[in-house]
Each structure stands twice: as C-alpha cells, then as structure tokens.
C-alpha cells in the first residue's frame, strides 16, 4: 500500500484534488440552495412549501448514481453541453441541497417561536430575523448533522467516476488495472478519503466547542 502511495502520489494527489474541488463546491453551493429550500419548507404559504417538498423528496428519494446519469444525459438533450466535472458538481449540489434543507428545516423548527415574535415586535423584518436571529442559532444546532452530510458528499463523490471525472476513485481504478495490485491501491485510496474526513471531523468538533456559548434555550 505504501509502495502504491509512494510510486503514484502525483496522480493520486491530482485525483484527490478533483475529489475535493467537486465535493467542496457542491457542499458550498448546496448550502446556499439548502438554506433557501429550508425557508421554503418552513414557509407559511402552501404554494411555496409544496414545490420545495417535492424537490426535497425527489433528490432525497432516488439513488445518487441514477441522479448523476440523469443529469449527465439530460443536459445535452436540452442543448446544454457541459464538462463531466460540471455535471458532477451540479448533481451533487442538487442532491446535497435536499439533504441540507432537511437539516436546516429541523434546526429552524427548534428555534422557539417566541424569539421570532420578539424580533417582529421590535420591528425587525422577517428576512433580518432569519439572517440575524434564526440562522446563526441554526448553524450551531445543526453543525453535527451538517458535518455528517459533508462527509457523506465527500464519499459519494466517488460515484462521479461513472461519468468519467478523474477524481480519486477513478484514478485508483486506473492504477489498480495498471499495477495489478487492486487491494493495495484501494487501501491507499481509502486511507486518503479517511484522512480528509478525519480532518473535516476535527474542524467541525473544534467549531462546535468554540460556538458552545450562548446556545441554551430558555
């Protein structure tokens, strides 16, 4: 395994970089979309809630591998030519947005309604209330499940190898077939995935400790 890492580290690092670019972009974009969807899911208007719920159910209820293939083949059909990596980021974004929206929705539901009423009585607008009162608390509350989702996306990004994105998984397959050492190669890839995810988990735990103050609900 060490031998594989030492002999093939330039391609492995390149694959890992692509993995990170794909998954981290999807997570960041999915965060924005996920927050908006969570607002939609918690909206008072059924007309807003319903389509957001439908979106969430579709992307949460179908396999990610299938979603990748659908996006990859659908885009050219409707006249949009994109590189595989773009299709990969797009799919993972749309997928993680559904899961993140559900995480944020449950976080929003945990904020006592009275806090929002207090903000409204102080004249703070609905948007400012979301931005300044609700979401800062939601981020703290949902950091553990959010970390889970980030790690899940990072691992699921291995699936984008099926649409010919040369990320860590695909690079490993290539090395395995060239060296005839599949076990060692895949072990090396596993170590790299694990290393990144351990770092992410450590960052999350650190943030959680730092933000612990001022969260007790009354």
């Amino acid at each position, binding site marked *: 395994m060490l031998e594989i890492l030492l002999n093939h580290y330039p391609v492995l690092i390149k694959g890992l970089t692509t993995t990170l670019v794909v998954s981290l972009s999807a997570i960041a974009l999915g965060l924005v979309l996920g927050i908006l969807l969570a607002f939609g899911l918690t909206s008072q208007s059924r007309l807003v809630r319903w389509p957001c719920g439908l979106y969430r159910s579709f992307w949460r209820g179908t396999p990610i591998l299938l979603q990748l293939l659908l996006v990859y083949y659908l885009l050219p059909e409707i006249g949009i030519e994109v590189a595989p990596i773009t299709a990969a980021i797009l799919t993972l974004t749309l997928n993680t947005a559904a899961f993140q929206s559900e995480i944020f929705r449950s976080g929003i539901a945990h904020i006592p309604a009275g*806090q929002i009423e207090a903000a*409204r009585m102080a004249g703070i607008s609905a948007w400012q209330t979301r931005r*300044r009162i609700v979401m*800062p608390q939601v981020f703290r509350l949902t950091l553990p499940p959010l970390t889970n989702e980030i790690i899940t996306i990072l691992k699921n990004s291995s699936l984008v190898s099926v649409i010919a994105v040369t990320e860590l998984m695909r690079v490993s397959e290539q090395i395995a077939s060239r060296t005839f050492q599949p076990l060692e190669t895949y072990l090396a890839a596993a170590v790299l995935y694990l290393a990144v995810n351990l770092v992410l988990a450590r960052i999350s735990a650190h943030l959680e400790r730092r933000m612990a103050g001022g*969260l007790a609900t009354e």
Partner: protein
Amino acid sequence: MPTADTIAPRAIVEAHGISKRFGDLEVLSDIDFRLDSSEVVCVIGPSGSGKSTLLRCLAFLEPYDNGSVYIDGQLLGYDQRGGMRVRAGERRIDEVRAPVGMVFQHFHLWPHRTALENVTEALRLVNGLSRRDAEAEGMAMLERVGLAERAGHFPESLSGGQKQRVAIARALAMKPRVMLFDEPTSALDPELVGEVLDVMKQLAADGMTMVIVTHEMGFAANVSNRVVFMDQGQVVESGPPSILFRQPRSARLKQFLNTWRERHID
C-alpha cells in the same frame, strides 16, 4: 363600524368588538378595549379566560377574526380595499405596531446574543444606529432596569428575573408609547418576582402606558389605574382596582377573588 374619525384623540390602543376562534373554540368574543395615554391596565382572570390572547391580538401576534384594533388611530393588521378587508402586508403591520413594545412570559431573549446585544439588535437593524450609538443607548436601557453590569453576559448566565429585565430593556429601546406585558412574572421563581415588578412600577411612575396580563393581584391593586376581569373570552367587569377588588358585582369575579384569597391568605 367605528372609524378612525370617531376615536377620541388620546386613545393609544382601541379595540372594538374583536373576536377570535381557534377552531370550534371561541377564545375572545366581542371585546371592547380602550387604553389612554399613561394608563396602566391590568388584565386578570382564570387561565384560559382569553387574557393572553387579547394581548396578542392587540399586537397582532394573533390575528383577530372580527372587529378592529386601532393603534394611534390606525387599523392594525388589515387594510380596507374597496369595502373588503384584507390582511395587511408585514411592513404595514410593523409600521402600525411600531409604538407597541411587548414583554413575554418566557422572556424570549435571543440566546446567541449578550444582554447588551439583545437590546441593541433592533436599534441597529431597524433604526440604523451605528454600533457606538446603539451601545450607548443600549447601556442606558440596561441601566434603567439595573443591569448595566451584566451587559456582556449571555442570557444563559442570567437569572430569570434578570432575563425578564433585559427583555424589558430590549422593548424600551425602541421607544414604545405602550408596553404590553404577557404574564411577565409567571415563569419566575417567587423570590425573583419582586425585582421585575419594581422595574414595572418605576415605568408606571415614569408615565409609561401599559397593559399587563397578570396573576399578581397585589401589583394590580397598587399600580394599575384600571383592572379588567375576563372570563370565558369576555370582559366581565372593569374599573378602578379600589372598586373592582372591594365591591365585585359579578358572581364570576367574586368567585375568582375568593379562590385567590383562599390560596394566598391562610
């Protein structure tokens, strides 16, 4: 149907025939309520009598079904459009209820903000004050409720009484002309009730117009100009505390006061 023109100029809050249902349950039926400048009105009554709902309707935290609530002569919560009544937009509601401050039973401080930040948040977001001006103003408000030295504390490290005083300071910061208190001491340990009532007494002495839903009969008797007794969604009796407490006319108020006395005097 009364209009803004018929309202005497000094009424800050005026409600005409408001009613409210939760499903099949009528929680408010045909309530009239009037609050003049510098008046302190206590609303008493058994639990479930609709007193908190009335207060929430006066702030439109609970939309009333029929009737009208006027704040400073302006219809709260609804717009008249071509003879039809439609729910007003959030901005319009904010505008009309700007003179109203509210204090809740469970404080509802924002836990991720310090005591001072709880007070300055709206000063900055709504009034657009700079951080420095907002903090100076916020400190003055905390001073007023005797909590200047707790400015940097998060709500979790404050006692219930201190939290409620911060909540009062937060409402005061927006310079309300009327303050609504929804059972402000009901969630407090008995030994912490006094410090909150003291702040409220001081407010009353300073001429603040207040409506207080409370179970503190002593406070109602000593501080209010008028007491409103509610039962089963109706105003049963109202008048100066000296008369209402000594010579209750209705059987329901007599019974309510007797029950209270039995529990508090042995």
